[in-house]
């Protein structure tokens, strides 16, 4: 069970509170992911700034939990520089909190197109499980103790098949699981 969720269950009954809290989660997550993606690609801030056609000081400000003035157009430029697609979506508060709690280098790293296993091997078919949630090793250990159900805010959520999003493991898992149709993603 998530300790953070337990703490937030009563606090989130207040609309203004939950929106402010979630907004901070968004800001810190984007700043963290930009830094992790840049480091994953072994780029300096200057190199990323050049590739995304912005000034290095601006990028430095964005790679900070304190930054909040995000725009879709800026994020699109960064996505292009990372050779990633930008996905913007509306999300339930429960997902935001769980994502934030599970946030790690592994869950925020993403392969560029050239390393994307879906497009590297003809053996790999569309795999819904791999489009779903990422759980780190420690999360999986916790999850294993909870068997097949995770009760959260009155709902039962199916646990995902254990998958590491570390690039090498990710690729290997994807190929290995290609013949195994029993992968389970979070119900939704």
């Amino acid at each position, binding site marked *: 069970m998530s300790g*953070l969720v337990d*703490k937030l269950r009563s*606090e989130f009954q207040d609309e203004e*509170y939950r929106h402010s809290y979630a907004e901070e989660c968004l800001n*810190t997550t984007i*700043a963290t992911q930009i830094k992790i993606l840049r480091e994953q690609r072994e780029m300096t801030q200057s190199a990323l700034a050049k590739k995304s056609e912005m000034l290095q000081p601006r990028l430095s400000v964005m790679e*900070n939990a304190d930054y909040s003035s995000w725009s879709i157009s800026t994020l699109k430029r960064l996505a292009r520089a990372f050779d990633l697609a930008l996905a913007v979506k509306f999300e339930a508060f429960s997902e935001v909190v769980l994502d934030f709690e599970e946030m790690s280098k592994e869950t925020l790293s993403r392969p560029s197109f050239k390393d994307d296993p879906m497009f590297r091997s003809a053996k790999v078919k569309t795999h819904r499980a791999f489009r779903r949630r990422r759980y780190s090793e420690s999360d999986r250990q916790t999850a294993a103790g909870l068997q097949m159900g995770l009760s959260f805010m009155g709902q039962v959520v199916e646990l995902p098949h254990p998958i590491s999003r570390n690039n090498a493991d990710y690729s290997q898992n994807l190929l290995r699981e290609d013949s195994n149709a029993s992968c389970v993603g979070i119900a939704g």
Partner: protein
Amino acid sequence: MPKWTIFDYVDPVDGNLIRAWTVRLQKKERAKLNQRLDSLAVHGAGMIPGIISPTGIPSIFKLKIRGKVQLRPMLCEGPGRGEEAFTLLLGAFEVSDDYDPVGAPLLASRLRDCLIKDMRRRVLHERVS
């Protein structure tokens, strides 16, 4: 699950001034503050860039929380040796490029010194929601 423990400095006379400072904040500001403290408790200081910022005073850091009011609570790592903890030392704001209270990092440094001399001067963080 939280890995890092958050403490509040407790004044021997006036009690938990961090709590008293937090109670006076608007709900929106308290939500942002709590999110940052949860981030510290879950991820520590190494994961999220800029989660804590240096103040220019050794061992004293600040949380930078933007909004209508610029929150700058002062904190330190530990200060117990090897412990995975942060201690909130002083509630502060930033107003016109200055701290309120004036000299907040230095004041926080003195409180840290007091805490190191007497580690009973702190309690587990009292969350205000």
